[in-house]
């Protein structure tokens, strides 16, 4: 009995068996490839059905209602649609249309269009990646397929673009599929050991899988990167807390809470799409970002061009005024802000920035007048209350200054600078105000231990007592 299988095998020539299996393998391979293609098509179609349109619909099927929207945006969409009509088999034309739709906040339409581009050119990772990103919240199951496809295509292309694989890992992580997520990050790190984003993903996987010590090591490698600083500190705080290291946990949590939001990661696919953003809002946003990045001259060019197209855009005039303030161009700033004021006479922000401009120019009475207008319209604007208080203090109007600073604290008790300013102002007054001064200075120091003037004033007052 035990030898029977051997006897059967021995009766069949080995070559015949190999041939049989080879045929079977080929047949199954064909089945597998067809299945993959069918599945991908089905997935794409499924996601398209969600959007109320079929993936293989003809060009022009979108029929987006473009009336009432920014003419520049409408023109960009119309142009992209026309390109699709001219070349309905062009994945690039469909993909470009998808990107135009995505950057103008039309995600559902963009998903359908990306699906079409993906079908026309499955080798191109961009469309799968962009579609996967758009699906990641609403249909993570479909997003996983799209991102995996994009990651695999990037591997085949050998261009070193690890972004789709990292996003794939992050999506798996967000679904708590840690065992599947970590290999994706590990794979990226094998190719690029210094990839901080992958390291951060790996740290999260390790933490979730209970390897807290390894998670701490991995997160520590991400602390110095401004794109992962807050995230790494937050993860470290959790890890230390789980290990019972309360002091370390508090320090890390404090660092995470006090740090600015992590910088965003460069995304070449989204950057390419962002270039297609047009219209008033997109250009205002771009100018605002340029101002925040201290690229004032670029912002001014952008805003002047914007104002040429939209002369009644009060926001553009306000931003232009802000840019001139940064460049200490008072005439330019005043001209722009007064124009904004004409267009939007009630604007709190315009009055606030007029105040900032006059204060910077040393014209404190006019600055105070503008700040007064701002807080009259929005009493809970703590920053304006603070600036009003500071101006009045410099003008010697102590009582009114203290009142404005108290209002600043009333609306934002977390403001260390308001506590500091008020504490120091009261410290210069009569003795009856000293207890309140000390209280505010203590608050200022507890909120911001680096506030040297508050600390020194507090030391003087407490020593004097």
């Amino acid at each position, binding site marked *: 009995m035990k030898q029977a299988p051997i006897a059967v095998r021995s009766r069949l020539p080995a070559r015949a*068996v*190999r041939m049989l*299996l080879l045929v*079977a393998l080929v047949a*199954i*391979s064909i089945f*597998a*490839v067809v*299945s993959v293609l069918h*599945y*991908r098509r089905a997935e794409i179609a499924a996601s398209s059905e969600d959007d*109320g349109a079929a993936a293989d619909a003809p060009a022009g099927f979108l029929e987006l209602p*473009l009336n*009432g*929207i*920014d003419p520049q*945006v409408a023109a960009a969409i119309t142009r992209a649609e026309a390109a699709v009509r001219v070349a309905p088999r062009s994945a690039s034309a469909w993909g470009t249309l998808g990107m135009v739709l995505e*950057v*103008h906040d*039309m*995600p*559902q*339409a963009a998903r359908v269009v990306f699906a079409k581009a993906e079908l026309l050119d499955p080798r191109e990772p961009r469309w799968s990646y962009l579609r996967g990103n758009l699906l990641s*919240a609403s249909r*993570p*199951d479909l997003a996983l*397929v799209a991102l*995996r496809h994009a990651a695999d295509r990037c591997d085949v292309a050998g261009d070193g673009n690890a972004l789709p694989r990292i996003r794939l890992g992050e999506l798996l*992580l*967000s*679904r*708590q*599929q840690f065992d599947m997520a970590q290999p994706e990050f590990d794979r990226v790190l094998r190719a690029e050991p210094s990839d901080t984003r992958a390291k951060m993903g790996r740290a*999260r996987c390790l933490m979730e899988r209970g390897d807290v010590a390894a998670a701490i090591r991995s997160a520590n490698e991400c602390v110095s990167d401004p794109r992962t600083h807050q*995230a790494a500190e*937050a993860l470290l*705080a*959790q890890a230390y807390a789980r*290990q019972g290291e309360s002091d370390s946990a*508090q320090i*890390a949590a404090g660092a995470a*809470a006090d740090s600015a939001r*992590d910088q965003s990661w460069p995304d070449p696919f989204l950057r390419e799409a962002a270039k297609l953003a047009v*219209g*008033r*809002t997109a250009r205002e946003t771009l100018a605002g970002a340029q101002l925040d990045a201290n690229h004032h001259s670029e912002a001014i060019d952008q805003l002047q061009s914007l104002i040429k197209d939209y002369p009644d855009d009060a926001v553009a005039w306000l931003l232009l005024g802000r840019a001139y303030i940064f460049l200490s161009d008072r005439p330019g700033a005043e001209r722009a802000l007064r124009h904004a004021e004409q267009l939007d006479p009630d*604007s*709190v*922000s315009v009055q606030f920035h007029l105040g900032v401009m006059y204060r910077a120019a040393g014209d404190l009475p006019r600055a105070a007048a503008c700040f007064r207008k701002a807080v009259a319209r*929005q009493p*809970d*604007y*703590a*920053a304006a209350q603070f600036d009003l208080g500071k101006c009045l203090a410099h003008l010697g109007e102590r009582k009114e200054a203290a009142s404005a600073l108290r209002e600043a604290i*009333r*609306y*934002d*008790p*977390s403001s260390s600078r308001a506590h500091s300013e008020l504490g120091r102002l009261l410290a210069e007054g009569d003795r009856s105000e000293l207890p309140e001064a000390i209280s505010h200075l203590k608050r200022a120091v*507890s909120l911001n231990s680096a506030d040297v003037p508050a600390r020194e004033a507090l030391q003087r007052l407490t020593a004097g007592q």
Partner: protein
Amino acid sequence: MNRELRSIIAAVACLMGAASGCDRSHDSRAPANQTAATEPWFEDVTAGRHLTFVHDAGPMPEPATAHYFYPQIMGSGAALFDYDDDGRLDIYLVQNSGPGGRKNQLFHQNADGTFRDVSAGSGLDVAGYGMGVAIGDVNNDGYPDLLLTEYGRIRLFLNHGDGKFTDITTESGLDDPHWATAAAFVDYDRDGRLDLVVTHYLQYDPTRACRDRIGQGDYCGPGDFPGAVTRLFHNNGAAGGSPVRFEDVTESSKLSTRAGAGLGVVCLDFNGDGWPDIFVTNDGRPNHLWINQHDGTFTEEAIERGLAFNGLGAAPANMGIATGDLSGNGLFSLYVTHLGSENNTLWTPQPVGFFQDRTGAAGLDNTAWHGTGFGTALVDVANDGRLALVVVNGRVRRRSPGEASPAPSTSLASGGKAEPHWSQYAERNQILENYGGGKFHDISEANPAFCGIAAVWRGLVVGDLFNDGGIDLLATTAGGEAHLFRNALSHRGHWVVVRAIDPALHRDAYGARISLSVHGQHLTRWINPAGSYLSSNDPRAHFGVGGSDRVEQFDVLWPDGVGESFPGSAADRIVVLRRGQGRPKPTTGPARGPASAALPTIFVP
């Protein structure tokens, strides 16, 4: 040959694996062990019960100027409370059309389950930019009082028990000129008096215009304005002729040290030390968890306890909050609602005092569709001991061109007529059934009454409105009607509704934890009406006990950490547990545990 065969089989297996291509392990749309939800869970009884309320959000924005008044899109909440102590829950609904606009409405529940508008002359018929409502007996006289939050102020109304309320805001010392949103009453220092927590949203500039990416005017977002701190008011008791006097302890309690953009608040014991903590959801910013230090101060520990960010380290649009024990271990999970472009987050306790994002593992990231969630609750609708999730949705940004409308026929706003402005923000609600093992699946399609109407849903309150053991829902909309949904399941399990009262304080014991065992399954609920979004739920604890027609014993952990056991009772009734009438039950944990220890233990009464 064997090796060759194995290699070929492995290759084939690999190819077959490749063919399967994707992972479906988390596809919650069609779970294998899903019970077919063919019977709708709720029916809309708004008209039949004579509940007539149309939310007025003020004048419609003028698209040309792009000045959209932000408080308008945030909607308003509601409260369920028995203001006249007749044993039936009454309803309070909030307007936000401004001081000269429509007035808030109080509805009294009649013996036949219908409602009568008793607003006129009640003292609660006030107008303003109303946001939320919190209920709590601030003077311990046995009648629940009402705190109203508004854009620009809060107002406290003292309940006289006879259908009349008096505005005692000024004499009570409450001064809060911010954009107040959610509020909760909690006795954080265990002195027997209910203190008050009020969250604030933003330092909003009403003159600011915002536009969407296609240039159309729209409501601004939280990132456009500085945040604000959550305020804590300590109840000092009667003073100076006022029945109650509050003191603003925001700074001394240290809640002032971190600003957020608060929209939701829940006060529960998060770290298991027996003292109530304060959890605040912040829109687009990290959440805050203020851990009670037992000395009148709090430390913010959301980051280290895992609740500040979601599992990917992001701070999404945190809004409404649902809490409940999902695993039968006496610990509560939290579900927080976000934007439609994000995933609402489920945090589960692992271990005690720490939380982990388990949204995907619970199947909650792959629901049939996504909306922008506001009010939410974890409730046992079928009375089978399992908490289901109910979520009300409504956009905050206009639907983009080409985006499919959520329902073929939009039934909205005044008199059932579709209001074009609000229809651009309308979405449907969702019900996610808990089918055990920590998994949920979306049964919205089978629930047309609650989930089939597209509107700008905001507030959601839950409770056993008709004292029949079934959990009912009341949902509010921005610019539309409030809807009352009665539990319509015909084959619900047995139930017990528990009211926990401290006779010395003459009021419900907010913060008490009630536990019972049924067939080896432990059920735990909390006396904790605040939660959801801008709303106050039924202050009683509801238990579905399935096939058990009797509860053997009730265990109560009172807010001051004292345990007490009460004899059981037959099921299908409302049980009132009065402190001192049971048997003392020692707790297994310290009466005053460490406030911020890394691994605190929870009491097990």
